[in-house]
């Protein structure tokens, strides 16, 4: 008797939603084993990681702060992933959004006007779109793989930010620290929950989630994205342009990543620093997949992954665990998710001795 993988007659809809749950459970089990091996009391560690961060009001607000960029980027990436457009460089687009939006803030430094913040958002969106337009152009013009181009541009973007804050945009009163001036009040996102850092970006993010949901389920544009992703030849037959879908999904991803970057620098950070994101652009890829590429799923997956960031910090503070635990948990979650996704199209079957005659 042995176990074999057999293709299901049709894809299991159950497994589509069960897979993230199983993956999460396996991540927790592996986490327990990992903590045991490290000689850490696993119950306490898991509590510190997953529960402690949200035992107080401030923790819930922080969850929203961390989830804002993850959900915003994840929901836009999920559109591209549905179209088979693999934008892996959201981190770079986020950085360009922060640079362009932050640049607007620095340009209007000291100007007290209600128009500064909207202008910064436009700058952030345009910056992200510009960065995403490069892989889009290379893909549609030269058929260059957008996975590689978008990923490589990420490193260009972070270096560009570094050059700017070390050089021209360095705070003149900042004792030579590689930091920009702290944005004026008019360039800072208003806090929506007094006493916390939860900002306006959270509301906008929820609105974007709703908008993408409508886009994907009710409009012909969302339909085109899905058709081109699933069956490009059918898309061509229907008269949908593959190139237009590539441009659309990359620009949407770039725009939302850029907006997320702007939210970071004009919200929780309040200035430009050499490093402005703990890898939100990459973690958003996990968010998109754990959320099954569906806006509502992405919303909850964003909260889950945001918790992993908070949990990492909390475990570091209370248990003295290394911050790398965050990355390990995120990685394991994606790893198990991809493994469990095999069960959507396949199932386990126990083979009894009957098959031996022909086996």
């Amino acid at each position: 008797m042995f176990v074999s993988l057999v293709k299901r007659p049709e894809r299991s809809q159950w497994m589509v939603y069960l897979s993230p749950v199983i993956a999460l459970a396996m991540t927790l089990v592996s986490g327990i084993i990992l903590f045991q091996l490290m000689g850490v009391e696993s119950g306490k560690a898991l509590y510190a990681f997953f529960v402690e961060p949200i035992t107080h009001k401030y923790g819930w607000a922080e969850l929203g702060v961390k989830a804002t960029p993850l959900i915003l980027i994840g929901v836009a990436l999920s559109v591209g992933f549905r179209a088979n457009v693999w934008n892996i460089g959201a981190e770079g687009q986020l950085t360009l959004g922060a640079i362009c939006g932050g640049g607007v803030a620095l340009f209007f430094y000291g100007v007290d006007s209600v128009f500064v913040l909207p202008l910064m958002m436009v700058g952030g969106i345009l910056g992200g779109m510009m960065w995403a337009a490069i892989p889009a152009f290379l893909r549609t013009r030269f058929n260059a793989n957008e996975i590689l181009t978008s990923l490589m541009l990420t490193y260009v973007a972070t270096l560009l930010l570094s050059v700017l804050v070390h050089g021209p945009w360095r705070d003149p009163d900042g004792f030579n620290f590689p930091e920009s001036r702290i944005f004026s009040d008019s360039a800072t996102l208003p806090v929506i929950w007094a006493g916390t850092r939860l900002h306006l970006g959270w509301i906008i993010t929820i609105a974007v989630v709703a908008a993408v949901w409508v886009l994907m389920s009710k409009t012909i544009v969302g339909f085109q994205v899905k058709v081109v992703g699933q069956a490009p030849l059918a898309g061509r037959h229907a008269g949908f342009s593959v190139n237009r879908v590539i441009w659309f999904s990359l620009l949407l991803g770039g725009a939302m990543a850029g907006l997320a970057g702007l939210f970071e620098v004009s919200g929780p950070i309040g200035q430009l620093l050499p490093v402005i994101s703990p890898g939100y652009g990459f973690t958003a890829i996990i968010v998109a997949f754990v959320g099954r590429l569906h806006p509502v799923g992405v919303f909850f997956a964003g909260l889950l992954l945001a918790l992993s960031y908070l949990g990492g910090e909390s475990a570091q503070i209370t248990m003295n665990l290394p911050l790398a635990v965050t990355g390990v948990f995120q990685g394991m979650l994606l790893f198990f998710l991809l493994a469990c996704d095999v069960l959507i199209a396949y199932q386990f079957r126990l083979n009894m001795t009957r098959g031996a005659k022909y086996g």
Partner: protein
Amino acid sequence: MESAFGALSKTMPHDQTRMMPPLLQLQGMTKSFPGVLANEAVDLEVMEGEIHALLGENGAGKSTLVKMIYGILKPDAGVMSWKNAPVNIQNPAVARALGIVMVFQHFSLFDSMSVLENIALGVERGTDKSELENRIVEISNRYGLPLDPGRHVYTLSVGERQRIEIIRCLLQNPKLLVMDEPTSVLTPQEVTKLFETLNRLSEEGVAILYISHKLNEIKALCRKATILRNGKVVASVEVESETPQSLAAKMMGEALQAPSARHHRKAGEVRLEIDGLHNTATDQFSISLKDIRLKVQSGEIVGIAGVAGNGQDELLRAINGEEMCQPADAIQINHQPCANQGPNQRRGLGMASIPEERLGYGAVPAMNLLQNTLLTAFQRLGLVKAGFVDNRRCKSFCLGILESFNVTSSGVLAEAGSLSGGNLQKFIVGREINQTPSVLVVSQPTWGVDAGAAQTIHHALHKLAENGTAILVISQDLDELMGLCDRIAAICSGTLTRAAPVSEITIEQIGMMMAGIENPGTEKSQDVCQPG
């Protein structure tokens, strides 16, 4: 069934078969796949030197059965005997060791390698190349399979490519040669040549299991036939005592309706006009269209015959707008120049098209029927308002298709991929026809569908033409074209012949046109037909 089979084999006219045990004997072969019983207790006997037909419609279980014989699939139950000894054919290597070889419907050849190199890949390592070349030449001479070992595969016609596969098999001194629908890609002349080779092999004692659903071929070639329907043997007969009609009746299990008469139709004004269409191939494996000229009138069905890969796909894409070209008036739909416009603009002018491939081209497999309705109907039927999909109208149109074309499905939310080939094709054909196009271009309308669905589709096409639509049918099935069309042209190497009225043309003439040898009506073509 078995006793009838035994009784029949005793009446065999050849002496040798009376004394010898069957070369291959199958008893109670059963194989199921998730949701379908592909073979149910199938019995089969093949004698040495016998050309035995395995006859059945698409989906009757022929391929499943031979895959078990060749060791690709494992039977769920059943016994196989080889010269009276039970055998367990676990994999193709075991089958080849016994002397069973198979020529598949789809070839596995490397286009950029020579004939010799392709064959060398299949033989044991260390075989001397020049010796192999000598054997190839010897076999090709002996069996009338002319083939130059030095030529590259991409320069060969489909018929020549098939010869490589056959020679590859013959190098192994086979006892049983299994051929899966070998003639579906050949011209009539190539078929005749193939049959000569097979008869020669049979005389030398090689048994041939010949899979087909083409009755005329089986009449011409085979001595015995085993007929499958829905995975079961329904009859095992002497071909001589059968007519094509009686074979068809056994194969389909119901009386066939005569093709509907086409004299109700009246050709009206020109709906589709193609005048000097050129389209340069985008890569080395596609075909350039050369100076295509064709007019299709309202109420008329025009057929385009041709061996696969001679520009049919390119022509379909050029007409339906998937490929745009210049000048604009090279293609006119209802007198509107549109060669430089995309599919939806042409749909706006009254065009609809049905590609050959259903899954992933005509329909998106993982999407439901509502979404697949939207795919090509959203524009002509106004199913989208201000960017938003009008689900109510989409649903009523979709239900209309399911009803009028008798599509068996679990409803509008069934995934397209869950439908059987015939039902999905009926859905796709219905989706286009129910948009009442004034021009319909359809490729291989009944490829791989069951007889019932084929009949529904043919009937719908006739009716659409009666109502004044200009229809262009691209097909490799000559019987289908002869039954459907008013005029037939042939395409060869991207060149289209003049369309000749069906009443003035024979199958043989069409065969010549398909091979690019004769071009009735216009100047002689020098091209030798090369599929892509």
